[in-house]
C-alpha cells in the first residue's frame, strides 16, 4: 500500500530509475522494476508479521556505487540518488563464489533428497549455472535425527536460520537454537539431542520454511503401500479439509484450486477400500466441543465458580503439545474433545468396523493431513487400543502428491468423484476447520442454534475471518454476548494463554491453530516458499467450498445424526467420552531425559 504522504526516494538500479518509499530495501525497489535479485535466507510474510532477514547468506549482494564492499540488498535501505548494479562482473563472481562455498559444505545427494525439485538451494545452483565446485574441503557431518514427525539431516543445513526464527520468534516453542560457532555452527535442539527430547511441538513450520532438505517430514508412504498391498487388510482413508485446497499446487494448478473430487478419485485409484472425509469428524468434533462449550457456559451463567472459561479448542496436535509443555498448570482449560483425525479413527475402528464386519486389527486407517504433527498425534499411546492405533498412518499433502505421481495417476485429467458413506459426508462447518477461525465459526453456528433453539440465518461470520495474528469478536447469542478469540501461530497463542494464566482473559472461547494461517499453512502442505498470497488463495478456497455446501452446520449433518442415534447416544455421553475425548499430560519436565 503506497501512502501518498510517504517520503519518496529516487534510486537507479541497473540503469533504470525507480521511485520508492523511504525505508524500502534495495531488494524491494528492484522488485518494483522487475529486477529479480536472488535471495536465500530472506523471508518476508508481511501479512502475518513474519519477517526473517538476517543478512546471512550473502546471495543477494549487489554493487552500490561509492560503497567499499557489496551490499546485501535484502537489508540495505535505499538512499537518495543511490546507484545500484545487480549484475556487474564483481557481483556475479561474488554471488557465484558464495554459492560455491555453500555447496562445498553440502552433500551431493540431490538425486535421492526428499527436497529435490523443491529445494531453493538446488534451484539457485541451476539459476547461477553452477557446474562444478572449485572449493573442496571438510564437510559438516551430523547424526540424522528422526522423531515421530520430523527428520533433521543437518549436513544439508546452510544456516539460513529460518527454522530458528519460526521456532523461537513465531512459534515461541524454543526447541531450536543456533549452537556452536563458525564452521561448526548449526541449528539444533539443546545439547544437540534429538527433537523428541526437546519441547518441539512437531508443528513443522521449520520444514515449511527450510530452503533445503535439512528438515523434512518422516515419510510413511512405504508403510501405506504395504498395507494397501496386504490382502488381509481393509484400508480406509480420511482427508483433512485443508488438503483439498492445496493438493492441486503439486500438479501445477493455481493456488486455491479446489480438487476435492479429483482427490477422492485419486485415492480410490490408489487402492483405498473406502475414501472418507475428516470433515465428517470435524462435524463430530463440533458436536462434542460445542456441547462442552455450552455446558461450561451455562454452568458459568448459573453461577458455578468452578467452571473453567474460556474453553480452548483442542483439534491441533502441535498446539496440544505446546500447552502440555508450556502451560501445564492450565491442563483443565482446553476442551477434552479429541481432534477430528482421532475422532475419525476411534469411530472408524469401532462403529464403522462393526458395520463392515472387519476386525479392528484388520482395519487400517490412513489420514491425509496438511500437517506433520498429526504423525506424532496418531502415535500417542492414549490413541491406541491394546497397541493398535486408532489412526495407523498419517501422510502429508506432499506425501500424497508424491504417492499419486508414483502410481502413474494423471491427476489433472481425473474426473470428480464423491467420498464414500457414511464417514464421507460433511457440512460447510467441517470444511472451514482448514483455516484459522474456522473451528470457532463452525462451533458458533452450532452452539447458537442449540443454545437459542433459533435458526441462524447468516452463517458467514466475516468478522472472525482473515489473517490477523490475533482476532477478537463477540457474537450475540440471544442477548448474551459470547466473546471469542482466535490466534494462529503459537507465539500469538502464548499471548492469549498468558492472559488466561493471569486471570485477565475475557473470552469465553478461544480457537488456536499452531500454524500461521491455520491448517492451510500447515507444516505438511505444498511448500509456499514464503509467499503469503498462496495461503490467502487457499483460505479463500476453503470458504468457497463452505459456501457451496448445501448443509453448513455440523449438527445438521444427517450422518452425524445417524451416528448419535445408532451408536453414541448424545454428545458427552459415556461412549462419547470414551471414544471422542482425551486427557492431557504435564510435559514441562518431559525433555532432555536420556
Amino acid at each position, binding site marked *: 500500500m503506497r501512502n501518498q504522504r510517504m517520503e519518496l526516494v529516487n534510486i537507479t538500479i541497473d540503469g533504470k530509475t525507480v521511485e520508492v518509499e523511504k525505508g524500502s530495501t534495495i531488494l524491494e525497489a528492484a522488485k518494483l522494476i522487475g529486477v529479480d535479485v536472488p535471495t536465500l535466507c530472506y523471508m518476508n510474510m508481511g501479512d502475518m508479521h513474519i519477517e526473517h532477514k538476517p543478512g546471512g547468506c550473502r546471495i543477494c549482494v549487489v554493487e552500490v556505487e561509492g560503497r567499499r*564492499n557489496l551490499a546485501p540488498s535484502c537489508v540495505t535501505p535505499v538512499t537518495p540518488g543511490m546507484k545500484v548494479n545487480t549484475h556487474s562482473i564483481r557481483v556475479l563472481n561474488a554471488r557465484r*563464489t558464495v554459492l560455491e562455498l555453500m555447496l562445498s559444505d553440502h552433500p551431493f545427494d540431490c538425486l535421492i533428497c526428499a527436497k529435490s525439485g523443491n529445494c531453493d538451494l538446488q534451484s539457485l545452483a541451476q539459476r547461477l549455472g553452477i557446474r562444478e565446485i572449485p572449493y573442496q574441503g571438510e564437510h559438516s557431518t551430523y547424526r540424522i535425527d528422526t522423531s515421530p514427525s520430523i527428520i533433521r539431516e543437518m549436513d544439508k543445513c546452510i544456516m539460513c536460520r529460518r527454522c530458528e526464527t519460526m521456532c523461537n520468534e513465531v512459534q515461541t516453542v524454543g526447541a531450536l537454537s543456533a549452537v*556452536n*560457532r563458525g564452521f561448526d*555452527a548449526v541449528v539444533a535442539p539443546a545439547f544437540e539431542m534429538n527433537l523428541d527430547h526437546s519441547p518441539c511441538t512437531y508443528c513443522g513450520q521449520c520444514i515449511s520454511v527450510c530452503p533445503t532438505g535439512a528438515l523434512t517430514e518422516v515419510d510413511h508412504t512405504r508403510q501405506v503401500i504395504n498395507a494397501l498391498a496386504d490382502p488381509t487388510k481393509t484400508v480406509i482413508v480420511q482427508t483433512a479439509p485443508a488438503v483439498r485446497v492445496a493438493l492441486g499446487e503439486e500438479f501445477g494448478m493455481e493456488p486455491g484450486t479446489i480438487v476435492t473430487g479429483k482427490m477422492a478419485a485419486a485415492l480410490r485409484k490408489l487402492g483405498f477400500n473406502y475414501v472418507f472425509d475428516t470433515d465428517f469428524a470435524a462435524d463430530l468434533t463440533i458436536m462434542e466441543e460445542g456441547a462442552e462449550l455450552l455446558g461450561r457456559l451455562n454452568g458459568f451463567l448459573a453461577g458455578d465458580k468452578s467452571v473453567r472459561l474460556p474453553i480452548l479448542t483442542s483439534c491441533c496436535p502441535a498446539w496440544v503439545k505446546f500447552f502440555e509443555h508450556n502451560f501445564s498448570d492450565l491442563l483443565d482449560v482446553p476442551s477434552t474433545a479429541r481432534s477430528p483425525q482421532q475422532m475419525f479413527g476411534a469411530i472408524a475402528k469401532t462403529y464403522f468396523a462393526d458395520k463392515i464386519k472387519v476386525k479392528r486389527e484388520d482395519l487400517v486407517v490412513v489420514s491425509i493431513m496438511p500437517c506433520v504433527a498429526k504423525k506424532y498425534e496418531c502415535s500417542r499411546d492414549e490413541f491406541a487400543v491394546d497397541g493398535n492405533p486408532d489412526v495407523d498412518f498419517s501422510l502429508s499433502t506432499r506425501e500424497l502428491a508424491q504417492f499419486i505421481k508414483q502410481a502413474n495417476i494423471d491427476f489433472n485429467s481425473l474426473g470428480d468423484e464423491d467420498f464414500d458413506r457414511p464417514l464421507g459426508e460433511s457440512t460447510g462447518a467441517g470444511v472451514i476447520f482448514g483455516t484459522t477461525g474456522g473451528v470457532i465459526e463452525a462451533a458458533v453456528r452450532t452452539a447458537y442454534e442449540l443454545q437459542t433453539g433459533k435458526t441462524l440465518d447468516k452463517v458467514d461470520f466475516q468478522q472472525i475471518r482473515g489473517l490477523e495474528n490475533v482476532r477478537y469478536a463477540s457474537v450475540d447469542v440471544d442477548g448474551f454476548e459470547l466473546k471469542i478469540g482466535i490466534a494462529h501461530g503459537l507465539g500469538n497463542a502464548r499471548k492469549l494463554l498468558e492472559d488466561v494464566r493471569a486471570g485477565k482473559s475475557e473470552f469465553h472461547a478461544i480457537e488456536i491453530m499452531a500454524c500461521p494461517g491455520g491448517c492451510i499453512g500447515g507444516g505438511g502442505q505444498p511448500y509456499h516458499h514464503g509467499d503469503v498470497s498462496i495461503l490467502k488463495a487457499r483460505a479463500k478456497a476453503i470458504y468457497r467450498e463452505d459456501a457451496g455446501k448445501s448443509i453448513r452446520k455440523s449438527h445438521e449433518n444427517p450422518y452425524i445424526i445417524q451416528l448419535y442415534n445408532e451408536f453414541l447416544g448424545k454428545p458427552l455421553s459415556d461412549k462419547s467420552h470414551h471414544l471422542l475425548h482425551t486427557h492431557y499430560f504435564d510435559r514441562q519436565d518431559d525433555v532432555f531425559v536420556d
Partner: protein
Amino acid sequence: MHLLVCGGTGCRASESDAILENLQSTLAENNLDGEVQVVKTGCFGFCEKGPIVKVMPDNTFYTQVKPEDAKEIVAEHVIKGRKVNRLLYLDPENKEHVADSKHMGFYKKQIRIALRNCGFINPENIDEYISRDGYEALAKCITNMKPQEVIDEIKASGLRGRGGAGFPTGLKWEIASKNAADQKYVVCNADEGDPGAFMDRSVLEGDPHSVIEAMAICGYCMGATKGLVYIRAEYPLAIERLKIAIDQSREYGLLGEDILGTGFAFDLELRYGAGAFVCGEETALIHSMEGLRGEPTVKPPFPAEKGYLGKPSNVNNVETFANIPVIINKGAKWFASLGTEKSKGTKVFALAGKINNVGLIEVPMGTTLREIIFEIGGGIKDGKKFKAVQTGGPSGGCLTEKHLDTPIDYDNLIASGSMMGSGGMIVMDEDDCMVSIAKYYLDFTVEESCGKCTPCRVGNKRLYEILDKITQGNGTMEDIDKLRNLSNVIRDTSLCGLGQTSPNPVLSTLDNFYDEYLAHIKDHKCPAGQCKALMQYVINQEACVGCTACARVCPVNAISGERKKPHTIDTAICIKCGACYEKCKFDAIFIN
C-alpha cells in the same frame, strides 16, 4: 658519578661488554673505581646508534662508542669534566651535537597520552588520579560546557576510534546525542581480542579512572546516564581494579546522582565477555551484553540509533576513552598538533614477537615502523634479520622492509594492505614462514567466526584448508588463484568487520611474500624451515662427533649411532620436533 653502558642485545653484539671492561679497568688505573660506578643497563632502544654509554648525573649521551674510546671518556669526561664531543649524539636536523640526552629528539618518539598514568600512579587510589588532573575534565565539561561544545571539542581534536576502524569519535558522539530516547547507553569495548595485543588491558590495569571519567563525559554529551564496560572475563586483574575504581568514584560522588551538584547523573556497570573475538564488533558486543550469542547484525541500524536493549548507544574502545580527558584538559588544538593530517594524536602499540624490547609503547601518529622496531623496540632478537611486521591482528596484514619508512596512520596502513587494528604489532624474523603465519591467522579466524554469514563461515575454512595444503607441500598454482578470488569475495561479501578483514593476512603475504608461496608449491621447500611436512632433519656425518646428545633428547628414538661415531636420523620415525636440532652443540644437524 655513574657510567651507564647499554647491555641490550644490539649493543652487546657491537662489543658493549668490552667497553664496560675497558671503562672499569681505566677507572681502576686511575683509582677512580671507588667513586665512579660502571653499570650495565637495559636497552636504550637506540640500537641504530649503539653502543651507548650514558653518563649520570649530567645525562651525557655517547653514541657509537668503541672499546678503545673508554680511555678518552675517563680521561676527559670523568677526570677533566669535559665532554667528548665527537661521541655526542648528532642531531640529524640541525647537525649539532646534543650534550644532554634530555634534549634529544629521540625522546620525542614516544609521547604518552593514553598511557599517561600507567606506571605512574597507584591505580587503586583515586587520590593519585585526582592529583594528576583526574576528573578535572569531567568537572569542566559538566559545569562549564554544553554537551555540544564538548562534542565540538572532540571533533576538533580529530580523535578517531582506536579500536581499529578509525571512525571519528566526535562525530559518533554527535550522532548518538541527536537520537532522542528515554534511555541511552555509553559502552566501553574492553573485549580486547587480538592475539598479541594488550593495550586496553594495560590501561584498565594502570589507569582505570581515565576510562570512567571519559565515559561519564560521553554520557554527558549524548544524554546517557548509564555506562557499561564490556570486559574480557580473562582479565581478572583489570576487572578488579576497575571495580575498585568505580567504587571509589561513587564514594567521591564522581559517579552516581547529581555529580558535582550539577544534576548530571551517571553510573557504570560491568558486563563480561566470555571468549568470542567477534564481540569486538559493536553490534555483536551489544548482543552479547543482552545475553545472546555474540553475532553481529547488519548496520544500519547503527548502535547510535538502536543499540543495547534497542536504545541509542555509543561504543568506544578503552584507548579511545583514555584520550578524552587529556583532550578536554589540554585542548583540541594541542591534541591535533600531534600526528598526521588525517590521524591525530598518538597510538598505543603492543610490541611483541621477535623483538628485543617487547612492551607497550605510545607514539605519535606518523611515526615510522623503522623508528618503532629499530629504535624503540631495540631491533630484532638474537641479531636475526627482520622479515615482516604484522599489524592489526587477524584483520591486518604483514608489512615488510619496503614499508618500514611509511609513517603509520590509519590511511597509510590500509593503503599498505594492513590496518591499524587495535594496536598489536608482531615482529617476525627470517625464521618465520609467511605461509604458516597466514595459516595461523586463518586458523584463528575460523575458530572465531560466528558462523552467521556464508563467506566467513565457509570461505575462511576453505582459505585455511588451501593454506594448509600448501604448507603440506601439496599446493598447486591453481590454489593461488583460488586464494586470491576467495579472499576478495570474502572481503567483499562478509557481514561484519571480522570477515571483511580476515583475508588480509592472506592477501598481504601473497603480495609481499609471493616467492615463499612459490617455494612451497613448486620446490616443495619451506624457506624458513618451519613447515614440518617439507623438511627433514639430517645429521652432517662429518660434523657429528657422536656425543649422543641428540639421541638422548629424541622423544621417539629416531636417532641411532654408536658413541663417538656419527649418528643418523631415521626420517620415517622422526616427528620433526626439532629437539635434536636445538640440542646439538656442533651444528651437525641441519634441515633439508
